[in-house]
């Protein structure tokens, strides 16, 4: 008996080593399989009169809850027979909500409709898994084909269909500052990263943090702004459609620039929330912050600051004329319990009234081109103008350009980069994960 046990322990101890030895050195990454094209069921346009319960799944809690509640109120005005169950799971960017959603979908208990970032985050996970209904008939019957920008419809759809109804549009590449403070410190908002690096030295000498940064995902957020500034819109798009290699000189340059910029950020960034990074700018401890325009909602609504006078914004350095967007949207999962109420919910989400109710409170702009701008504040009006005539590209950190596998692995690559600050190695690792997640073919 004793001998048997000893042998067992020995084997257990050896097992990890065996797996280390197993196989050679090549990284045999199995590229994402081609999803075979099957006929996808369309949404039906007549499920009867909406009644019963409707469960809406989202991560809009806290500061973002009032906007969602207003939208739900509007829905209840139109469909008083439906009881809306507001299922929120807190956590910025949906970090926790998405995991909960997956267990529910896998367990055969999909919510009637769920919030999801429009683009590859939805397509790479749920559309590829054939768990969504094609909404093209709904878009056609509601006349949405004409009111949503074509670029946007292309990004939320594939050749097989349109998969979600966007409720808002956020801009990712915005740099926030307090004009009064900049005047006092004798600097102006930089137009390029070179300019930023020049004035950063000066700010640091005055004891000011040039750029405030927060927890890990905001570094990815900064990366996409730096990448857009260094590469320009065409080459930035090239990273996602395979025209620009992740190991090219320009791509390495993005990491090198990020490395220089990180020298001028607060040391304690990984322990801060994005709101705390905004607070640093508002409180006069930091000069600039690059964050999506939900920061405008935070400053206007929570901190009661006036856009345009108390706080100002500019496109992040080197990205003037480009609008890096992300959007929240709602889709129609297969097998929901109450399809009639779900269809009605999507109609409310896409309607002009719904969008103009939701967005002024959320701090975002309407994804429709015909929205009533008078309901929005100064910042949103300027963003809406930019959205109408700027070049539009998608955000990585918020799920537009790459699937969830790539996004998660990219966070790991970023972590590696923050530890060793090696641009070459980061570029190589990014190429490896792009291959592994099917962003670029070998």
């Amino acid at each position, binding site marked *: *008996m004793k001998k048997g*046990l*000893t042998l*067992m322990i020995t084997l*257990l*101890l050896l*097992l*990890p*080593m065996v*797996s*280390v*030895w*197993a*196989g050679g*050195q090549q*990284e*045999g990454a*199995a*590229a*994402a*399989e081609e*999803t075979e094209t099957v006929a996808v069921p369309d949404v039906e346009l007549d499920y009867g009169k909406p009644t019963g319960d409707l469960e809406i799944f989202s991560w809009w809690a806290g500061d973002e809850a009032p906007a969602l509640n207003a939208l739900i109120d509007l829905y209840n005005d139109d469909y008083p027979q439906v009881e809306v169950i507001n299922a929120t799971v807190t956590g910025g960017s949906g*970090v926790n909500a*998405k*995991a909960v959603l*997956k*267990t529910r*979908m*896998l367990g055969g208990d999909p919510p009637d409709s769920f919030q999801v970032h429009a683009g590859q985050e939805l397509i790479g*996970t*749920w559309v*590829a*898994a*054939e*768990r969504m209904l094609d909404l093209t008939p709904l878009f056609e019957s509601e006349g949405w084909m004409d009111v949503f920008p074509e670029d946007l419809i292309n990004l939320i759809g594939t050749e097989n269909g349109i998969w979600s109804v966007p409720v808002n549009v956020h801009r990712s590449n915005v740099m926030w500052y307090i004009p009064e403070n900049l005047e006092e410190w004798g600097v102006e908002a930089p137009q390029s990263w070179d300019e930023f690096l020049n004035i950063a030295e000066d700010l640091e000498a005055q004891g000011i943090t040039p750029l405030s940064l927060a*927890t*890990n*995902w905001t570094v990815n957020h900064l990366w996409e702004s730096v990448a857009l500034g260094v590469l320009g819109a065409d080459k930035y798009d090239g990273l996602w459609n395979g025209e620009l290699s992740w190991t090219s000189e320009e791509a390495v340059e993005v990491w090198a620039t990020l490395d220089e910029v990180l020298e001028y950020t607060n*040391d*304690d*960034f*990984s*322990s801060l929330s994005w709101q705390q990074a905004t607070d640093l700018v508002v409180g006069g401890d930091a000069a600039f912050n690059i964050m999506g325009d939900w920061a405008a909602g935070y400053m206007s609504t929570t901190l009661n600051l006036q856009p345009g006078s108390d706080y100002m914004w500019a496109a992040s350095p080197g990205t003037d004329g480009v609008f890096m967007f992300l959007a929240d949207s709602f889709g129609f999962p297969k097998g929901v319990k109450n399809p009639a109420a779900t269809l009605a919910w999507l109609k409310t989400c896409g309607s002009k009234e719904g969008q103009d109710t939701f967005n002024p409170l959320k701090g975002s702009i309407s994804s429709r081109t015909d929205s009533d701008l008078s309901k929005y504040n100064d910042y949103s009006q300027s963003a809406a103008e930019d959205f109408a005539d700027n070049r539009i590209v998608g955000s990585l950190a918020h799920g537009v350009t790459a699937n*969830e*596998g790539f996004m*998660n*692995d990219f*966070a*790991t*690559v970023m*972590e*590696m980069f*923050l*530890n060793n600050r090696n641009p070459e190695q980061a570029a*190589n*690792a990014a190429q*490896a*994960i792009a291959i*592994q997640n*099917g962003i670029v073919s070998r």
Partner: protein
Amino acid sequence: MVGSKRNSVYSMIVLLPSLILLLIFVYGFIGNSFYVSLTDWGTGAALRENPVKNLIGLENYRRLFTGAIHERFRQDLINAIFYSLFLVAGTLGLGLFLAIMLDKGPKGENILRTIFLFPMALSFVVTGTIWRWIFSPKGGVNLIPTWFGMERGDFLWLSSREKVALFNWQSVPQIIALILFVIFAFMLYGGWKNGRRTQTIWGAVLSGLMLFYAAVLHYLLPPILPYAEFHGFSLATVGIIIAAVWQYSGYTMALYLAGLRGLPVAMYESAKMDGAGDITYYLKIAIPNMWPITLSAIIIISHISLKLFALIFSMAGADNASTGHPSVLMYLITFRANNFAVGAAISVILFLMAALFIIPYLIQSYRARR
């Protein structure tokens, strides 16, 4: 005779339901996780109703240990080892100290005992939230120096990227081989001393193999990673360790206090009579006599150290790689990246680590019962 037979039939019938449930929900699912870890479930349409799973052998494990993009897993594994070591050492040390202090029967012993035991009643999420405030970089403990007119401390308790005791991942097989060499050498020595032939032979063969690997083969075989990769003790884990020790040292205190009170008074008195001071009594007599308690405390605490998920998640966040743990990474890879096979591989590795702790315990109790 007939009665005992009937008894065993009854006991079988009574045990059967829980046995079946155990087989399905524990061993069946462990087996299923192991099977998933041998597949490539996770590429492309992982969340389909009938996802495609191809068997790829130990490929996921190989990638975790030697693939370029799984650097975080390797650091997390190192973190897990340090978490276990420091948590066991910290709770045992502090618990023993508190128990000895209380054993002297100070005033208000009952109240103190409750106070020390109280943190254990909290959930990890509560502990994590409290200690996150205490360790926040611009507040909490970093403010203590200002009470004495000094500069505010600037140590980043939970987000420092500093690592100490660095070592190269490429030399890990060599290090493991050397550790195994020491273990097998002891086996050889024990067998030789007690005249057990098979044990001597096994010990000689295995320790020889390990030494041969560490001294010769390691340099001949290709390195497990194409480049040097340094890992070490991440300083950000100190904050987590302190919080966990705070939570569980009351528990070890209770164990030890019961142990001390269970020792016969005569033992203490005769030690005194022979001229032993308090220190000698505790060091030479009480602690060695409490060995079974120490052993069970080690096993329980090292299990808890593998379940730090909730504490790390609430205290530092899942994305904070400096305080990472394989269980947190498993959650991210499975539920965020949809890479179910790699997630399963990590959970199997965690399972084996737990087995490392529990098998010695099983041997011990098996021997004791015989």
